[in-house]
């Protein structure tokens, strides 16, 4: 069964190739079957492998499959090989499973698009690249997948490229993540030079043997990897591309935010956690970045008008939680939240996509409302997703994963009360903005007429994901309720358990849970009151000068775009404008002009006269003689 592992990335890749090469010649109906089918079979293989992994785990709880040797030069070998352990298995399941549902949904969502086959080709490539990223045994394959994901995000965000704004958004995403990629590439070079191997497991082993805790090279490597991770995962300070990435079709947003792309950074940190363990200061920075991001993005989500931008900021915020978990050494908790987040965020995006289509491509929540009755399936699934996002206790999967992160942030040796408080405050804000979104979209009076209702192809993935969002959290139940640590236990073969001391904290856990639940419920109530029951409250707050300023600031995502424009883009453009007749070109143009000049001078010697030719022959002979005699 494990031998089939290569099929997992190969199937979507084959789907991409078929659609890319023959997409125009195939009948239009075939595109979704190939596109969704390839990912579906890939998911099936993943699930079969997962079943096998549970029932009969491979030796050493990991399995590696060498497909072929890529290069072999003077003792340096680079193999095309896949590595499966608990971490990559979970990632595979998320990417293929959620990815498959998104593909199915797209089959209806994109049906009227003229580039139907092209869309599925890109989506398949996206999934294939992400699978390559999580399954690659060495850094080269990981980087291949990493770059592939970057490329596909560019192609898909700018999928409707005829609108220049979409092209700009795609460019912004690509360039911003590229900054992170550069850090990451340097980090990989550093690791390779220092440790002399590209194999990730071997690399981690050598790092733990050769580097002391807190040594400079470990910190440098960890920081560089973190640079790559914040770029791909949309964390501070490189989060600016994510809200704009909403320019792509909604299934793309779902894929980027739930199954692929943004989780790559989290995966990368989990994969290289040994390096971060060796660099406590860098790991602390991971936690701080996560905490800061989750707060900033949570507040920014409060002031958005566009439903997809709310979701985008919520993604940034939730990824912040995952970073927080990584930073306090609770890797399994972070991955757990990654899984539940994949469920509910894919659900929320696809449900919002259904709303947007129903309202004839209206994304402004201020023009929505009262859709509860008109779109019941969408409403209920969206509500379930929102509960999970806001982590309502017991009945939502988000509760279990977020709770585990908050508890780890508090109790872990690497955690602190401040980190916990940031997460706690974030949960409160999440409650407000989530239900603000629900209320503005589905309650109140109807402002825009419902145009079309989603068909079953779009509804089915919503329902499946709603079930997952409700019950997915039961994989891990905190000991305060009922001790059932299935997920963290399963991950222990790949990721170390969070360093949580067991004595003297039994009561604290339950107490903290209660406090967090109260915070979430407070947030919910505030949203209900301020946006549902008495909307004048919200209006009054915004009407005050301070409130208005605050709203504008939050609406602009704390003005990061403005800041980067002022300190980076404008100076860059000024320099470019100043040097628009590139002075370096003077050299090359000079050489060209010189060559041309010498050419015309030399051409004068080609007179065609034999007497002149004979004369040069004699002069040449004289010169040759002179050289020999005089030198």
């Amino acid at each position: 069964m494990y031998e089939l592992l290569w099929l997992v990335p190969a199937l979507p890749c084959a789907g991409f190739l078929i659609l890319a090469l023959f997409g125009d010649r195939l009948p239009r109906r075939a595109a979704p079957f190939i596109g969704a089918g390839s990912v579906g079979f890939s998911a099936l293989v993943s699930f079969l492998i997962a079943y096998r992994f549970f029932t009969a785990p491979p030796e050493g709880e990991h399995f590696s499959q060498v497909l072929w040797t890529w290069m072999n030069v003077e003792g340096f070998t680079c193999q095309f090989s896949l590595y499966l352990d608990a971490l990559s298995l979970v990632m595979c399941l998320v990417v293929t499973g959620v990815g498959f549902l998104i593909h199915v949904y797209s089959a209806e969502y994109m049906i009227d698009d003229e580039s139907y086959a092209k869309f599925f080709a890109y989506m398949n490539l996206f999934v294939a690249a992400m699978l390559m990223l999580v399954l690659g045994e060495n850094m080269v394959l990981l980087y291949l997948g990493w770059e592939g994901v970057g490329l596909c995000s560019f192609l898909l965000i700018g999928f409707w490229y005829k609108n220049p704004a979409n092209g700009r958004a795609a460019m912004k995403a690509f360039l911003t993540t590229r900054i992170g990629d550069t850090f990451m590439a340097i980090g990989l070079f550093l690791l390779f030079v220092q440790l002399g191997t590209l194999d990730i497991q071997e690399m981690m082993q050598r790092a733990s043997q050769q580097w002391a805790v807190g040594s400079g090279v470990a910190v440098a490597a960890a920081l560089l990897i973190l640079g790559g991770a914040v770029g791909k995962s949309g964390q501070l300070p490189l989060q600016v591309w994510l809200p704009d990435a909403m320019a792509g079709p909604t299934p793309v947003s779902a894929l980027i935010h739930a199954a692929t792309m943004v989780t790559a950074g989290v995966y990368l940190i989990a994969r290289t956690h040994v390096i971060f363990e060796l660099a406590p200061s860098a790991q602390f920075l991971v936690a701080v970045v996560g905490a800061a991001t989750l707060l900033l993005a949570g507040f920014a989500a409060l002031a958005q008008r566009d439903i997809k931008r709310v979701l985008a900021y919520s993604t940034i915020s939730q990824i912040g939680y995952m970073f927080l978990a990584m930073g306090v050494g609770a890797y399994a908790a972070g991955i757990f939240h990654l899984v539940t987040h994949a469920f509910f965020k894919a659900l929320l995006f696809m449900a919002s996509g259904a709303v947007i289509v129903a309202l004839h491509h209206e994304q402004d929540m201020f023009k929505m409302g009262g859709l509860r009755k008109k779109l019941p399936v969408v409403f209920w699934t969206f509500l379930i997703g929102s509960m999970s996002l806001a982590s309502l206790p017991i009945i939502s999967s988000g509760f279990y994963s977020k709770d585990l992160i908050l508890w780890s942030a508090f109790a872990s040796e690497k955690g602190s009360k401040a980190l916990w408080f940031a997460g706690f405050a974030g949960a409160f804000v999440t409650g407000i903005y989530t239900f603000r979104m629900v209320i503005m979209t589905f309650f109140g009076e109807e402002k825009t007429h419902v145009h079309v209702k989603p068909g079953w192809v779009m509804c089915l993935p919503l329902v499946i994901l709603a079930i997952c969002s409700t019950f997915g959290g039961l994989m891990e139940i905190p000991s305060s309720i009922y001790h059932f640590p299935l997920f963290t236990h399963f991950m222990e073969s790949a990721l170390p358990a969070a360093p949580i001391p067991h004595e003297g904290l039994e009561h604290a856990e339950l107490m903290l849970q209660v406090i967090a639940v109260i915070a979430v419920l407070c947030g919910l109530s505030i949203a209900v009151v301020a946006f549902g029951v008495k909307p004048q409250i919200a209006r009054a707050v915004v009407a005050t000068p301070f409130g208005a300023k605050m709203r504008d600031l939050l609406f602009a995502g704390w003005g990061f775009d403005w800041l980067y424009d002022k300190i980076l883009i404008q100076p860059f453009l000024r320099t470019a404008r100043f040097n628009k007749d590139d002075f370096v070109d003077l050299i090359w143009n000079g050489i060209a002009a010189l060559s041309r000049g010498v050419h015309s001078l030399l051409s004068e010697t080609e007179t065609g006269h034999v007497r002149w030719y004979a004369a040069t022959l004699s002069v040449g002979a004289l010169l040759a003689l002179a050289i020999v005699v005089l030198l």
Partner: protein
Amino acid sequence: MTLLDLVALLPLIILTAAATGIVLLMAVCRCHRTTALFSMAGLGLAVISLPFANSMAPNRAVTPLLMLDTYSFFYMGVMFVSSFVIAALAYAYFEKQDGRREEFYVLLLTATLGAAFLSASSHFVSLFMGLETLSISLYAMVAYTRDRRDSVEAAFKYLVLAAASAAFMVFGMALVYAEAGTMEFAKIAAARGALEQGNHLVLLAGCAMMVVGIGFKLALVPFHLWTPDVYEGAPAPVTAFVATVSKGGMFALLLRYFVLIDVHQYPSLMFLFTAIAVLSMFFGNLLALLQDNIKRILAYSSIANLGYVMIAFLASGHMAVPAGALYIAAYFITTLGAMGVISVMSTKERDADSFADYRGLFWRAPWIAAVFTAMLLSLAGIPLTAGFIGKFYVLAAGEESSRWIGIAALVVSSSIGLYYYLRIVLTMCESAEDEAPVSRPSWTEATVLTGLAAALLFVGVYPGPLIHAAETLVASIL
């Protein structure tokens, strides 16, 4: 003269017999096809006899005049194959022409014989014999399309200047003889050792004057001015011959002679050769830059290419010999291919040498255009072509002997050169709505071009066998 001597001479004997045979054949039947086939058979037989002679009578000095070693057999092999290709091209080319065509093959064979003689020469007498056999045949070949004004003009220019340069050469030989008292290369080298320090002046002056003759044949600066005129005026297959075989023989001789007398002992001669090499590279590439005639471009390009190969010559012996041989082989394939395309494109009235003839060739005759592009890229030294391997080895040889000036000149000038090669490629890519369609090449021409393109790529991708062959030459000459 023993039987083994005759075996060693077999390739030359076959060529001579073939040339004589054609003369007799023409007396009986004047048939272009038969004559061409006869000459090609003679050349083919000569090629086949090379390995036989090499294994039966290895490294044999036949009389003091000729040294028939692996080195000379390698160059003969390359030159014979080239002449074979040229004979095939000439057959297709002259099929389009009126008039007597059969004599051309006699001239082709005697010219090849002269070049082969040069490559095997170990004595001034055989050197001069080979040189003159080659040159006199060439005068007539250049003028072979005698109703074309350009051809006759080119032939006369070539005659006057080649004769003048030969005079310098003979004078140089006389000076060397006066000092060394012998005309055998090996003995000159021995006598040189006996000379007192500082007493080499006459010997050096003799060498310098010989350089004039050699430089003229190889079209090196400042003895290069005839090249474009002759290339342009001569019929395309003859141009191919001037560019390849006639230079190959002379280069083989140059390398043998100066390696034997150990040119590295003489800084002044080294300086002279370096100056010639550097000037040739720059003059060749710069002169070709904005040239509008493709044949003239190839003429200038050959000046530059011979400049490149001079770096191999300047390197120390054990690298110089294989690098030079490799470069010459790669250069032959490439030049024959490029000239072959011109020959194929030519019509009865004129040779296809203007840019207009090639505008939009990619749409009119994609296969020919692809072959031409490959040849031009090889001349520019782009990887995966034979030209790259040749250039790489020349650079490696130069680097090993620290000929940094030459290497720098090669790098700079060949990047300038890229411009005019790509200009031709660009012209072939332009749209060609108003251009006439190209007549289909005959199957001979198609076979020749395909074979050359295949050889170009084979050497470029898998140079192992050729490199190995070139490296075995060192043992025989040193």
